[in-house]
């Protein structure tokens, strides 16, 4: 939001000339949006994204303060820097939105996702699936003689990697929560 930090007198051109158009580099940002948990609040946020043509890569939402009725919405979105700024400003305009944090620019964040992964198989494939699960620290939360349900937590990349490995071993179904994120440090 702030102006370009060009020292007064250091250039004769306006900043407009230095950056003639907005950058078209696509960036992925994780936003944490604290909202009043009232009916329709999620529809407002999603409606903003669809109505203005922004992307949602992942979205998680749950009430985090049961007494204050506030929910935390974590949105991973992709766009040019200007679009990301617009998204934040537009989110800030929604009346029940209290705070918008761009975790990607605010000093980094811890991002985790939980996935449940159902794999069918017998014999060697079944053993291999178990072995890989062990390496990924995935837990078995359901088991039959022909299938497992693994629970895995980690970054989206780790979940992706595990899912890719399970595919040839008999992947049946995947359920993912989307990213939950908190900024690092205080």
């Amino acid at each position, binding site marked *: *939001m*702030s*102006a*370009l930090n060009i020292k*007064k007198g250091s250039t004769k051109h*306006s*900043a*407009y*000339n230095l*950056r*003639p*158009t*907005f950058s078209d580099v696509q960036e992925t940002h994780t936003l944490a949006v604290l909202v009043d948990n009232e*009916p*329709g609040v999620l*529809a*407002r946020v999603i*409606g903003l994204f669809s*109505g203005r043509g922004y992307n949602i890569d992942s979205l998680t939402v749950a009430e985090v303060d049961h007494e204050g009725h506030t929910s935390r919405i974590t949105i991973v979105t992709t766009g040019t820097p*200007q679009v990301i*700024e*617009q998204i934040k*400003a*537009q989110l*800030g*305009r*929604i*009346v*029940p939105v*209290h705070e918008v944090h761009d975790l990607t620019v605010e000093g980094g964040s811890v991002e985790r996702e939980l996935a449940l992964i159902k794999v069918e198989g017998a014999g060697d494939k079944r053993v291999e699936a178990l072995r890989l699960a062990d390496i990924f620290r995935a837990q078995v939360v359901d088991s039959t003689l022909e299938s497992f349900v693994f629970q895995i937590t980690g970054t989206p990349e780790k979940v992706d990697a595990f899912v890719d490995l399970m595919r040839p071993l008999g992947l049946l179904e995947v359920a993912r929560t989307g990213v939950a994120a908190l900024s690092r440090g205080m």
Partner: protein
Amino acid sequence: MTRQMTGAKMVVQALKDQGVDTVFGYPGGAVLPIYDEIFQQNGIRHYLVRHEQGAVHAAEGYARATGKPGVVLVTSGPGATNAVTGLTDALMDSIPLVVLTGQVPTFMIGSDAFQEADTVGITRPCTKHNWLVKDTDRLSGIIHEAFHVATSGRPGPVLVDIPKDVQFASGAYTEKTKVKVSHYQPQVKGDMETITQLVEAIETAERPVFYTGGGVINSGPGASQLLRELVEATGFPITSTLMGLGAYPASGKNWLGMLGMHGLYEANMSMHGCDLMINIGARFDDRITGRLDAFSPKSKKAHIDIDPSSINKVIKTDMPIIGDVGHVLEDVLKVWKARGRKVNREGLSKWWARIEEWRKVDCLKYKPSGQAIRPQYALDRLEALTKGRDRYICTEVGQHQMWAAQYLGFEDPNRWMTSGGLGTMGYGFPASIGVQVAHPDALVINVAGEASWLMNMQEMGTAVQYRLPVKQFILNNERLGMVRQWQELLHGERYSQSWSEALPDFVKLAEAFGAKGILCTDPADLDDAIMEMLDHDGPVIFDCLVEKHENCFPMIPSGEPHNKMLLGEASTKDAIGTKGAVMV
């Protein structure tokens, strides 16, 4: 001790506590309890419109002409859906409205009940905020909050959807003063560091221009006063968007006229050639900027706006100042005065000399015709014959709207009601009704085209019922003039569906409603006819038959920058490239 009352009574009580004395609306099954309460009191006057869209536009006109929020009461289902256009219009133009809709009882919501619609769902993207009230105890608090949201920060429309059982049930009334302080408190004071940067830029700029918008009007009369003071003291030229007309007087010596697609040559050339652009309460709308990569290429840009999302939305800003126009201008003046009221006199006088050259082009000149009334002439005469009167002008949307903005002079804020952002044909007539309700003794004129005017002509009933002497000044070219103009410039003169056939006899139409109609076809009769309209103490439909194929100039063709204006018929050939043609 809290007062217990029914939800319906609460609505009326809350409106009164908010200082509301005027409501525009239309009854129906789901709001009957509220209408029953309105019947049993005198503090709030209800104006019965003829269509819910008319109610919302009337409330918009009322709001724009008073600075107070407009209030609308309509029923569920079709009542609410008919209000959608007005809500969107108010959202685009930042007009504060509180719209109350009835809803089917809570236990029937979701059952596809008679006249049920998902009103909060439908109106979510076209309101600033909306509420479905499911508990009578919360109703009055929500209405108070609704007024707060509608009028704080960047104003806009809000909607409160009230199920019928909530209206019947009793609950505790929350006094206005006891309402929990909303966390919604937009920032009004601008950042002093950036304000100082702006003042430094003001001190040294060689070719500055003020570019002002509707935000100045919305900030209140005080903001217009501060703007005038700043413009006079610096001697900078000033132009304005359609929405900002009247903030600085058209008779002021620094006035360049409106800018943008149909703006004045001197205004657009100044925007293109300036080295400091000070945007005050405008939003770099596409009607203003033209081609973005060639928009004012050599300027530093300051942008004062209360809405953070307006900053850097389309144009990169060097000095973004988030805050209320009035507050920021006050600080700008304070800092500028404290630093010795400096401007670059030498640069400024050269700049004005260039502007004078552009002014000599006289881009609004036209040749009056002896046979047909040219629309520009009609507005020139209307201006001359109403100048100095307590005058409010509304418009519909199209060529006549642009001509009105070009040829009429606005001396004060809140005197000009037009649909800028959404471009809603059918806005002007109901808006004029709202303005006249707010200012019963003022002269209220709706400059209209015949096609726009027909879109909400049913409101003649409202005008006549409440004896509102609104003057409907229809520039009748029997065409959808702006559509026709674009078809001429862009689509090989194939005038697809852009003529008005089977038009009514407007004089008879007026008489059928019990109003006065005037037909004028000859330029020689025009002055007398206008005087007859002005002298009539009642609503008038003035059918002014004008030149049918007049085009609206000057014009920046789509996809072109400010310095590529078309000034008249001769310059139009192949003016719009294929890239420009896809833009509206």
